[in-house]
């Protein structure tokens, strides 16, 4: 039976991560960082990865990790979503780590798990699990080519690169040219990776590693989207209780109450779908359907939450100073990341036998 609740340990983990992020990722700081040369908050990353050991949750203890499951990772991601934290957690501790687990590369797993290195899978953020992805040329043991849309690549120490021979290769980030792309979501910035005879070490087959990595990324992204939606709802409710127009709190107008109640319903549903995906990834049961259902549902809800937050805050919500735009941009980018809701609905159709005409 799927367990859709949070355990006491998971709630304790949440409280600890929330405390840490309150110290590191306050909204003005996150906004300022998006315009700086250092888009990632590496101090927050160090505290999460090194201080709390959270980069290694998915890695078995024997390989230098914490031996936890996707359920705990999902709780961390809820909190990261709540604060749009600019840390490469999903990229390194989930997606790259899953690829390395599939390849069984002990050395890099240990480095990523301990937080000593940040790993990034060099597959465009928009790619859905199970779909084709570009590969670079392999010539006499070195890699040549250009890959675009690689999230968090500028923070990477090691890149995991698919090559045309069907292998997945580890490339030291210092051997690649990383060119930042101006990104819609500056808290998960994209970059172009250019390889010009980069030295590379073969880790294993790319296809199963990438499929597993993107499936986990998609499934757990739903928890980040839930955290984002919950922040947007909570913050908007709080603001509308305070904000007065026509001699009344704006939150007392029924047209707005109904919209917020509707958003609450969607958010509650999203929590169930996200917990179901995290639990399925942890137990290995019914994983494909659980992930596809969660990603078919999550992006529209997170986006709706962010868009309602903006509209209901009205003028102040349009300003650069107010953090809503960070959430809107993250939610919109997340609606493309690891496959759109439509792509995941097509996956559902295949999985449950509701074929297209």
């Amino acid at each position, binding site marked *: 039976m799927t367990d859709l609740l949070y355990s006491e340990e998971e709630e304790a983990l949440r409280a600890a991560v929330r405390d840490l992020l309150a110290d590191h990722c306050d909204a003005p700081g996150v906004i300022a960082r998006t315009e700086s040369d250092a888009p990632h908050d590496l101090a927050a990353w160090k505290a999460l990865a090194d201080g709390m050991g959270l980069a290694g949750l998915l890695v078995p203890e024997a390989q230098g990790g914490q031996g936890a499951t996707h359920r705990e990772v999902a709780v961390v991601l809820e909190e990261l979503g709540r604060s749009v934290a600019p840390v490469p957690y999903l990229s390194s501790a989930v997606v790259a780590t899953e690829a390395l687990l599939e390849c069984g590369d002990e050395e890099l797993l240990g480095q990523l798990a301990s937080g000593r290195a940040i790993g990034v899978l060099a597959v465009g953020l928009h790619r859905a699990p199970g779909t084709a992805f570009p590969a670079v040329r392999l010539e006499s043991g070195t890699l040549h080519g250009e890959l675009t849309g690689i999230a968090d690549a500028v923070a990477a120490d090691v890149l995991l690169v698919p090559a045309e021979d069907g292998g997945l290769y580890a490339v030291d980030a210092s051997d690649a040219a990383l060119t930042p792309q101006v990104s819609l979501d500056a808290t998960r910035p994209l970059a172009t990776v250019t390889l010009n005879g980069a030295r590379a070490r073969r880790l294993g087959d790319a296809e199963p590693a990438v499929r597993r990595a993107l499936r986990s990324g998609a499934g757990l992204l739903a928890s980040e989207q839930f955290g984002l939606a919950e922040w947007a709802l909570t913050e908007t409710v709080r603001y509308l209780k305070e904000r007065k127009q026509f001699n009344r709190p704006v939150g007392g107008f029924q047209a707005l109450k109904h919209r917020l*109640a509707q958003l609450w319903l969607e958010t509650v549903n999203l929590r169930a779908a996200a917990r179901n995906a995290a639990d399925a990834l942890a137990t290995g049961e019914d994983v494909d359907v659980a992930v596809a259902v969660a990603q078919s549902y999550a992006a529209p809800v997170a986006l709706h939450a962010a868009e309602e937050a903006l509209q209901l805050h009205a003028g102040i919500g349009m300003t650069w100073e107010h953090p809503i735009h960070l959430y809107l941009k993250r939610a919109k980018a997340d609606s493309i990341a690891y496959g759109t809701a439509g792509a995941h609905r097509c996956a559902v159709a295949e999985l449950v036998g509701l074929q297209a005409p």
Partner: protein
Amino acid sequence: MTDAAELQRRTAELLAAHPPATTDRLDFLKARFDTGLAWVHYPEGLGGLGAPRALQAVVDAELEAAGAPDNAPRRNGIGLGMAAPTILKYGTEEQKQRYLRPLWIGEEVWCQLFSEPGAGSDLAALGTRAVRDGDDWIVNGQKVWTSGAHNARWAILIARTDPDVPKHAGITYFICDMTDPGVEVRPLRQITGEAEFNEVFLTDVRIPDSRRLGAVGDGWRVAQTTLNNERVAIGGMRLPREGGMIGPVAKAWRERPELRTHDLHQRLLKLWVEAEVARLTGERLRQQLVAGQPGPEGAGMKLAFARLNQEISGLEVELLGEEGLLYDDWTLRRPELVDFTGREAGYRYLRAKGNSIEGGTSEILLNIVAERVLGLPAEPRTDKDVAWKDLAR
């Protein structure tokens, strides 16, 4: 504390003393009630053992495996789901002893005399009058949307006992004898063609004061117990994947490829996902209840299912194309059971329209979520300090 092992032992004893194969159905149900295995969370002597509610599943599983008869709970949904918890909470010892046993075994079916033509969402504005006459009350008025009134032996009734105070304060809760000569039940035909509901006319109905539930003037508070249980009963059904309205549509899609279009495919997938997510939310709510951490999610379940049932059944009629232009039967019938997913697509589509009205409209439920869950300001009230008799109507 009664645990699962203890309940299994008692269930085995019941089955040994009253073998289902050779015992009359009602005799078995009476014996089950008297051994406290009817609803184990009720008190001893009233069909229960004061055990945790979640343990009922242990008893039900054992009895089902042994082929024991059940109490046909769907025939008496209002009795079991709404009247019983209210009697348990507010009834006198005599009332509990008199009513709960025949209610649970299904000998006596119950209905609900709450809504009126002039009191729908604003139920507290109801105008049915109850006037004290010695040891009795004399009741006059009209009730509506009364499911099952034509089968019912008893009704839970709220009526106005004091028109001179604000509306919430002047209501009293009664148990009404549906065989009283002043009770007239007329079928109320609905858009599906059948008459699942009734209008009930009350003319000089005499109710002894011993059938009052709770204090005089306290009927609104008593009714909250009834109404909260109604929403749990309507939204809280446990479903397997594709268990609700989506099931017949998915089946038609798989079996009849000639009906498929790209537009319908996109809409079907969206609704399939939403139905699956609503199912997971319901499952999560149940897990919270079992873990003793009830959340506010229950308030949303009925809202979600009403919208989904309507959209899914609407899609189904469209999917069927030429067949969607037909209807199975418009004959006026008075069904004993209500089955939202029963009959054909056209019936499902029409019946589902009631899902966002019965048991609290979706608009009222959104207000409840906004105010009680999100803590937003309540609607401005113009009726709070006005005597009921002076309200606009």
